[in-house]
């Protein structure tokens, strides 16, 4: 399936490049212009963010009042609760599913591997919309079965929706780690009489800890930043309240303060990941033989299959079925095909992906070939920007651009620039890993034959890291298609995206209007997802 590095880039700075085993790293000074693309990519987020911080600090006591208020304390508690619940659940689900597909003999494992990871194609707000419209006394399930099913909103709804859309991160990283694990240790333990459970608990799980740690912390970050699902579920966590304060109050200071608090929480998560990651080995050694598989029979087998089926159903089957039903119901109400939204989504995502690919290559060269303290900072900033909740970024950019950017305010240029900036780290990570596989002698050979740095990059480096660049671009396309909060705040007048359409309709309980665009979004997102998956194998 898709490599964990591709889907879940390290959210803190990756290991020092010169720690890559066995590869002599050329040092030297990079040409000055090589810094430019990296700076260009990061400025659209960093500068407005800096201004936001300055503005909030200038508010002084007013800001402090917001921070110290009871409402804020409740907000922190709510958000923390949601994060803990989601993290715990997705860890259990992710690891469990990974174990089932990688370490047992359940039938249809190849199918399950794909099915279990599929929710990645479905944005959390679509899952939320499906859950909301299916449950409750007026929901689809109640209609279909006649049983009154309790409404799934608030904390329970948010918990379920966010878990379903984030557990694939844990699943993918864990499954990949299990595949790369050397079975010798497990075999030794079995030889000494340990049961499969004990082997898992004492041998496998400790080896999984670093990967699991990274996956879990990624989940935590996504939960903090999630806006769509949480707002539809009417659960008062940070993102929802920031948006409500921003659009519902005339004084925008509270929204700004809360937005920064949210960032503080996110940074704590990022720091925690760095601290606990320690000396994790990033690159697996090729495994000589596949791991021993546990045989599941009878009730256990059924239970395993049932579990995986439940995941597939809840994560993919239910949402798609619900959406299709709503489309069927609403087809009479004359909603036209959302050409504008499709064009907006696809257009903006293509632009963002293209832009990112262009700046990612020179930056990857800078970071991989000329590693230094300063380039390590570039990477650190890129990954931190990636970790920033988009609602805060959107807020910061709106405030900054309306004040200082004149004609560019509310323009597609700014929106695309912000997309490219926040998702830059994904492409950078992919390009960089790709580049590290290529010997630097190739580039030096090119230079010794008279080609300057730019010509070398285009004629020699780019073709060699094409795969990494394309994977990065696909990833950026995928995540931009699904993006919601920054788009809500930054889009130009008259510009529509599928994400905005879906969310606005669902927020006003207009499910049949949301369903069509939701299905379209899933269908379009499936394309890059499929390409990414097939490229890895």
């Amino acid at each position: 399936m898709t490599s964990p590095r591709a889907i879940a880039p390290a959210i803190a700075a990756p290991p020092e490049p010169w720690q890559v085993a066995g590869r002599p790293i050329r040092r030297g000074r990079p040409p000055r212009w090589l810094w430019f693309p990296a700076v260009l990519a990061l400025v659209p987020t960093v500068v407005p963010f800096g201004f936001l911080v300055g503005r909030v600090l200038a508010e002084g006591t007013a800001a402090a009042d917001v921070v110290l208020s009871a409402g804020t304390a409740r907000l922190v508690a709510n958000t923390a609760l949601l994060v803990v619940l989601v993290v715990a659940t997705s860890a259990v689900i992710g690891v469990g599913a990974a174990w089932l597909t990688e370490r047992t003999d359940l039938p249809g494992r190849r199918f399950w591997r794909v099915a279990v990871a599929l929710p990645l194609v479905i944005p959390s707000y679509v899952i939320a919309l499906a859950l909301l419209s299916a449950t409750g006394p007026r929901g689809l399930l109640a209609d279909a079965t006649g049983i009154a099913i309790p409404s799934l909103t608030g904390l329970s709804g948010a918990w379920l929706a966010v878990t379903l859309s984030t557990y694939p991160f844990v699943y993918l990283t864990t499954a990949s780690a299990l595949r790369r694990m050397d079975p010798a240790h497990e075999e030794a333990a079995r030889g000494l009489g340990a049961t499969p459970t004990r082997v898992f608990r004492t041998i496998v799980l400790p080896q999984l800890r670093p990967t699991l740690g990274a996956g879990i912390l990624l989940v935590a970050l996504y939960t903090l930043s999630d806006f769509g699902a949480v707002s539809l579920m009417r659960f008062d966590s940070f993102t929802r309240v920031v948006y409500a304060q921003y659009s519902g109050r005339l004084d925008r200071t509270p929204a700004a303060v809360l937005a920064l608090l949210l960032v503080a929480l996110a940074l704590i998560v990022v720091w925690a990941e760095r601290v606990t990651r320690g000396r994790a080995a990033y690159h697996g050694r090729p495994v000589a033989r596949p791991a021993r598989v546990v045989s599941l029979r009878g009730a256990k087998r059924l239970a395993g299959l049932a579990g995986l089926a439940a995941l597939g159903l809840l994560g993919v089957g239910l949402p798609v079925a619900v959406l299709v039903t709503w489309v069927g119901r609403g087809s009479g109400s004359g909603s036209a095909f959302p050409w504008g939204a499709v064009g907006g989504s696809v257009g903006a995502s293509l632009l963002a992906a293209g832009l990112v690919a262009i700046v990612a290559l020179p930056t990857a060269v800078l970071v991989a070939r000329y590693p230094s303290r300063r380039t390590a900072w570039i990477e650190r900033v890129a990954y931190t920007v990636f970790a920033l909740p988009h609602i805060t970024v959107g807020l910061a950019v709106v405030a900054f651009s309306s004040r200082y950017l004149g004609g560019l305010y509310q323009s597609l240029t700014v929106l695309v620039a912000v997309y490219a900036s926040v998702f830059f780290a994904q492409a950078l990570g992919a390009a960089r890993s790709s580049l590290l596989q290529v010997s630097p002698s190739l580039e030096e050979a090119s230079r010794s034959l008279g080609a300057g740095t730019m010509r070398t990059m285009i004629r020699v480096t780019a073709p060699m890291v094409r795969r990494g660049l394309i994977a990065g671009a696909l990833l950026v396309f995928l995540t931009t298609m699904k993006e919601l909060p920054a788009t809500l705040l930054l889009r130009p007048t008259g510009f529509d995206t599928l994400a905005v359409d879906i969310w606005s309709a669902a927020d006003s309980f207009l499910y049949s209007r949301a369903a069509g665009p939701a299905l379209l979004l899933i269908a379009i997102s499936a394309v890059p997802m499929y390409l990414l998956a097939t490229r890895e194998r």
Partner: protein
Amino acid sequence: MTDAIICRDLSKEYAGVRALDSFSLAAPEAKVLGLVGPSGSGKTTALRLIAGFERPDRGSVEVAGDVVVDDRTFVPPERRRVGMVFQDFALFPHMSVGDNVSYGLPKGSARRGRVADTLDMVGLTGLEGRMPHQLSGGEQQRVALARALAPAPAVILLDEPFSNLDAPQRERVRREVRNILIEARATAVFVTHDQEEALAVSDVLAVMRDGRVIQQAAPHELYRRPADRWVARFLGEGEFLSGTVRGGAVDTALGRFQVDTPLSGPVDVLIRPEHVRLTEDHGGAALVVDREFYGHDQLVTLHVDGGRRLLARAGPETIFNPGDHARFEITDVVVFAPGGPE
């Protein structure tokens, strides 16, 4: 004869480690200069400084009379007329042989012809259309050489060019490459840690240790008159004894030998195995304790004079087995000032 490359007092430090320490070198035009030394002696660093992939902390480099590096100047690699052949060949895998070789050539009608000529020169006529992965190691080596030669650079640098080849290929390819370089009248500097290779391929040999050149001379000069014990040991086998120079000869425990040296008094004496003649003799003073047979000759380890070790080279006709006795005769010695680096 002008020098194609002149390095003056190059120094380079990495993270507190001194890679080059006042390194100076002069590579004569149209000759092959070998740069040899143990790992960590700084040879690759020196090469990379000449090519321009790194900047020296101090010192200067001239290529074909132009200063490419000094306190005020730094010419980037693409503008130095320096070609390079890399240890891993570094052929562009996504380009054909022809495209690889033509990479450094300016666009124009003359290109194709030059590519064909260069491939001829390296003995790979007609292989323009092949892809690098379709070639053997030796062939890839030659494409790398052709690519570097095609733009007619002032100098070609080769970084451990034969270390990526299998042992049986190595000697043959070595010879071929040397011939190609001579035919192209190229000035070449190649780096190796293998002293046998260095001696075989170079017209001029520079021995490096700890970041500087200890001695630079023709290979046979170096071999016969090494500057110190260390160079002597590095370039070949031999045993050391102490001796005293008196009146045009040196007295040692193994005899008295004529020498031509300005030294007098106590000295260190080196006896090379090829200067020890062995004859089968049951009553001989030497006891054979070990023998390595190379096909074309053998290296015999002897114990003489009450346990002293001596190495001797003998032809393949008479096999000396451990336990045999032999008569030995020392035909020549080299003397050094006593002390000095080991």
